């Protein structure tokens, strides 16, 4: 505890209302574009529109777990509690987003693949990622000593990020039922209609703002909790 610094106030609460307004506005625009403006897919019909929640949530989950990794390195390097607050906040939101894109993907799979779930590489590696980060959150409850808990969680957070590229590349490494990368692919430009791509980018922007808003609120909560912890010592 002596190596750490006492949490101080930050600017997050001041920008949060504006972030919330921007997130809500872009979310409405993205939802209208996804449900009504984007064209119907020639093969799948309208059910492909689930892509506009499934894919942004997946990308933001990847980002959330990379932030956990970076914050974990930050904690181990500097022992500043701020990094631990960022790590736990991002892990919690990442678990929420992973759970949601798994559910949305499962709902999409039923009318397109004929099953809710199948044991193929992308789905299995994603399920492992989900369980790993649920484990990360549970691990944090095993110790009441702040430094010990933060250090254990940081080591876990650094190791667990290995699964993120495995999830993304699993469709290339193994014979997968899941669609190959459509936008983030090595072979040239995105294989997507321009208006579909625009809708996807607007959705990605909206979910990024939602992630940022959730992070600002959750980090503030964790900093307040750390502050109460310090006053008790």
């Amino acid at each position, binding site marked *: 505890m002596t190596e750490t610094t006492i949490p101080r106030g930050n600017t997050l609460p001041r920008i949060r209302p504006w972030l919330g307004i921007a997130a809500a506005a872009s979310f409405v625009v993205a*939802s209208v574009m996804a449900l009504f403006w984007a064209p119907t897919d020639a093969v799948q019909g*309208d059910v492909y529109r*689930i892509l506009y929640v499934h894919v942004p949530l997946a990308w933001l989950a990847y980002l959330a777990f990379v932030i956990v990794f970076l914050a974990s390195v930050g904690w181990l390097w500097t022992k500043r509690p701020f990094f631990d607050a960022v790590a736990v906040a991002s892990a919690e939101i990442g678990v929420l987003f992973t759970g*949601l894109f798994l*559910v949305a993907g499962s709902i*999409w799979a039923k009318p397109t693949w004929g099953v809710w779930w199948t044991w193929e590489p992308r789905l299995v590696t994603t399920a492992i990622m989900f369980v790993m980060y649920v484990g990360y959150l549970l691990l944090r409850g095993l110790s009441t000593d702040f430094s010990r808990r933060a250090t254990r969680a940081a080591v876990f957070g650094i190791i667990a990020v290995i699964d993120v590229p495995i999830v993304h590349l699993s469709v290339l490494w193994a014979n997968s039922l899941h669609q190959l990368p459509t936008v983030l692919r090595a072979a040239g430009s995105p294989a997507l209609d321009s208006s579909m791509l625009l809708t996807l980018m607007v959705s990605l922007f909206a979910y990024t703002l939602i992630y940022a808003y959730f992070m600002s*609120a959750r980090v503030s*909560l964790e900093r307040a909790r750390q502050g109460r912890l310090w006053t008790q010592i």
Partner: protein
Amino acid sequence: MDANLVFIVAAFAIVWGALLAYLISLRARGA
């Protein structure tokens, strides 16, 4: 009307509902 409309509505409703629930939980915790 698309025969798979129920799947589209379900996916969007679950995602929207969960995001709203998380927002409410943050507010309830004091954020």
